[in-house]
């Protein structure tokens, strides 16, 4: 009698206890091991641009960590008032030394010099903000110590701007061991 009660009790325990999910020890170890070697990372390029001017700068990713690009967003602000969309600068993202192959088997893509109106699918404008909505459906292995050239061409009003590359850094050793998930 007591034994069956304990078994039923323990069954419930494995789902929830004190409001906490209980995962198996192996599951937790897997999460911790994985997350130790993969971390989110932002690469930002901030610029100040005069009307009709053009600026560019390079961003280089971390050595020994592969950078998976997952999203790009851009932001422009004229501190004294919102820019009209026609005044927005044009942003180009130029991936140089693009990784020729990756463990994901992805073929090199023609992503050189991507104009903003192609990268950013929707020109979202809310309230006083001037920004291009984040393009999220990206998943490109840029490799380690990869250089990305970010360029901006000014509109008709001087302004400040920023381009943000968001992604995940994966430890080189972990990346080399990745088998595509078939055995993971």
């Amino acid at each position, binding site marked *: 009698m007591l*034994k069956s009660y304990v078994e039923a009790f323990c069954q419930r325990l*494995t789902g929830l206890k004190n409001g906490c*999910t209980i995962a198996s020890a192996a599951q937790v170890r897997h*999460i911790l091991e994985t*997350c130790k070697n993969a*971390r989110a990372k932002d690469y*930002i390029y901030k610029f100040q641009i005069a009307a009709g001017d053009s600026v560019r700068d390079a961003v280089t990713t971390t050595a020994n960590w592969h950078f998976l690009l997952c999203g790009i967003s851009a932001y422009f602000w004229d501190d004294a008032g919102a820019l009209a969309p026609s005044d927005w600068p044009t942003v180009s993202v130029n991936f140089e030394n693009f990784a020729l192959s990756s463990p994901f088997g992805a073929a090199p893509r023609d992503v050189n010099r991507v104009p903003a109106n192609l990268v950013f699918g929707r020109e979202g404008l809310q309230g006083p903000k001037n920004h291009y909505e984040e393009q999220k459906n990206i998943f490109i292995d840029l490799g380690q110590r990869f250089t990305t050239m970010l360029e901006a061409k000014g509109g008709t009003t001087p302004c400040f701007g920023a381009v943000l590359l968001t992604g995940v850094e994966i430890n080189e050793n972990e990346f080399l061991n990745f088998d595509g998930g078939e055995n993971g």
Partner: protein
Amino acid sequence: MDARTSVKSELMAIKQTQAFKKRFDFTRKIIAHQDTAGKEVIPLTNEGPFLCTGYNIKYTKNSTVTRGGVTTNINRVGLRFTAESDNSAQSNDYVPVQLIATPGDVDGVRYGERPWQHLYPEGDALTIEYDNRAPANPAVPGDVYAMANEEIEIVFTGYIFPGQSIK
């Protein structure tokens, strides 16, 4: 095996094979002092490793810029996070809060979070660097900046794994 031994053995089995994964919100408020680039070091939990899965930021707009006699409230704060354990900044430079806050304005309806994954070991500390300085050169000559203290409130959401450690 009697019933009591059976209970002990069942509970021991759970203890040895199961682990907690606890939902956790970690909230902190910092003041980005006017005309200052500074930092705040915030101790994280001692309960176990903290896996951050996202954050949300709320901010004030106390600073102003004046152009042609018209004054506009602004927030020019940039943030950079660094975990003490790995000493690796989570961005290469200060990121404007307006770019990473959701939805990005102090009076806006708050929803969701910005997905962001970072694992902090037990006892780790988070360094939040901020830059609340006026631009060295205004985009439009003649703009006059009056920087003020800004309140930045951040909610980090994620999981704690009590009693676990990262090797």
